[in-house]
């Protein structure tokens, strides 16, 4: 497992630089530079606007989508009260941010690596592709429901081989599952990295096991602290022990986690 660089982890109050809103409820949020150039894609941060008040007790976890010397970007979908309120940020508003948290995806050089993204699971792969030492070894397969323009897919496709699979209706699902399974099987000898909804991850975990493919899965859980303290976000690891997704994940080896 990748160990995070603890010295970087701090709470900061970052100014909001501007929102780009895509169609419907998909939002890219850019904050001033937190100094995370050394983050590992797959790591996340907890976000909480300073003016939130007390109704929502927790920050909200989001994958770091990309970070450079200028700024850090998150990419999220509006699904509830917290994400809705995030879209009401005004330029200059400060957001309390702690991170980078958890571990990230492995990024071995010159290793054929299949990136499987389901919906918002595409977020961490944007930075992954940008930072990978040998991006020509990467291939992205992106399963999505909303229109492709809702996601930062095109700019990723410009950099690596990429294919998108559109789930237009629930009837498409069986074909998509088959396709994902085939992709995992075909990745034998390489590495599979996956981020997306739970059923998507389960399909990949089973296929990886069946075809003996090395895979890493990024999990989601409701999180209160984000730093391993509250024990609210646990899953079971390979030894059937409860481990914190925020601190021991969110990226797990596929054979070391119960979904």
């Amino acid at each position, binding site marked *: 497992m990748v160990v995070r660089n603890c010295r970087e982890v701090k709470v900061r109050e970052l100014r909001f630089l501007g929102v780009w809103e895509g169609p419907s409820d998909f939002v890219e949020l850019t904050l001033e530079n937190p100094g995370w150039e050394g983050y590992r894609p797959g790591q996340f941060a907890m976000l909480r606007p300073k003016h939130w008040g007390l*109704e929502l007790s927790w920050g909200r976890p989001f994958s770091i989508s990309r970070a450079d010397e200028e700024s850090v970007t998150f990419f999220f979908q509006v699904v509830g009260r917290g994400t809705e309120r995030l879209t009401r940020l005004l330029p200059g508003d400060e957001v309390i941010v*702690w991170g980078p948290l958890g571990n990230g995806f492995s990024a071995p050089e010159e290793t054929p690596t299949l990136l499987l993204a389901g919906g918002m699971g595409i977020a961490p792969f944007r930075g992954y592709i940008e930072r990978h030492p040998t991006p020509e070894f990467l291939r992205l397969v992106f399963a999505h429901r909303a229109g492709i323009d809702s996601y930062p897919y095109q700019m990723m496709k410009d950099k690596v081989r990429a294919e998108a699979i559109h789930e237009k209706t629930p009837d498409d699902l069986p074909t998509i599952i088959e396709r994902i399974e085939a992709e995992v099987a075909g990745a034998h000898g390489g590495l599979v990295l996956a981020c997306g909804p739970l059923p998507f991850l389960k399909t990949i975990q089973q296929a990886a096991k069946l075809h003996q493919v090395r895979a890493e899965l990024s999990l989601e859980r409701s999180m209160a602290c*984000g730093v391993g*303290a509250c024990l609210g976000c646990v899953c079971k690891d390979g030894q059937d022990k409860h481990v914190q997704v925020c601190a021991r994940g969110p990226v797990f080896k596929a054979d070391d986690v119960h979904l």
Partner: protein
Amino acid sequence: MDLRVEFAGLVLKNPIITASGTFGFGLEFMNFGDLKRLGGIVVKGLSLKPREGNPMPRIVETPCGMLNAIGIQNPGVEAFVRDKLPLLPWRETAIIANLYACSAQEFGDLTGVLAGEEGVAALEVNVSCPNVQSGGAAFGQDPAQITKVTEEVKKRAVGKPVIVKLSPNVTDIALCARAAEAGGADAVSLINTLLGMAVDIRTRKPRLANVVGGLSGPAIKPVALRCVHQVCRAVKIPVIGIGGIVSAEDALEFILVGASAVQVGTANFIRPDMAFRMVDDLPRTMLKARAQTIAELKGSLELP
């Protein structure tokens, strides 16, 4: 300004203590502030044997609060003493062990393991375990049981201060506090969480695998303040205030009604440097109350 507080044989550099279960073993927060600046740290509930805790989901956000049913997942008291305690700044900050057990005997044994540890400043006894022998009600809901457990812990504490942590899920919390006092407690801390529940109409299921859980956060502050007020008037031993404290002003409210110190729980999730910020904010907040010392503020509420 003098932020120091002294009670139950403890001397804290300020009245801000982090609450059990919300600050891990302290080590998780080292990146966010200097642990030495805190008045104290109550570590996650410890049991004799390691515990895996409850199944997921374990936490739910509620309006201005949260429910938790962690189920005291912990590595066991021995792992704590061996792996965590040596890493904590226990010479500078009071490290308080939180004890969880389901019988007086077990509480005694837990105490036995911790009593000799120099790094442990005090023991906080969590009596919220359902007492299986007496029909499911928790120990903490039965004054007689509270006295018994307190006596057992006190007997084996070898002079370490014993703090009994009280549950608000009772008709008369002052009675429970007196029961702890009668058992020899050096202090009481309150409140633990209120019993609550949340359900999802879409799945028609409870939102916690454990069905019920403990409510904490600003939502419960008025209840906590009332409990501390009642208990301060009922016992002579010191009282530590807990429940929904999210600012230095909240902390002083509890001290105003009579608390000797406070614990900060759910607020640590608002931002992980919250407890440190509260220490920083104390002096300017004391000015609002026209107080130079914590001591002069303590219990100075004017009643009509």
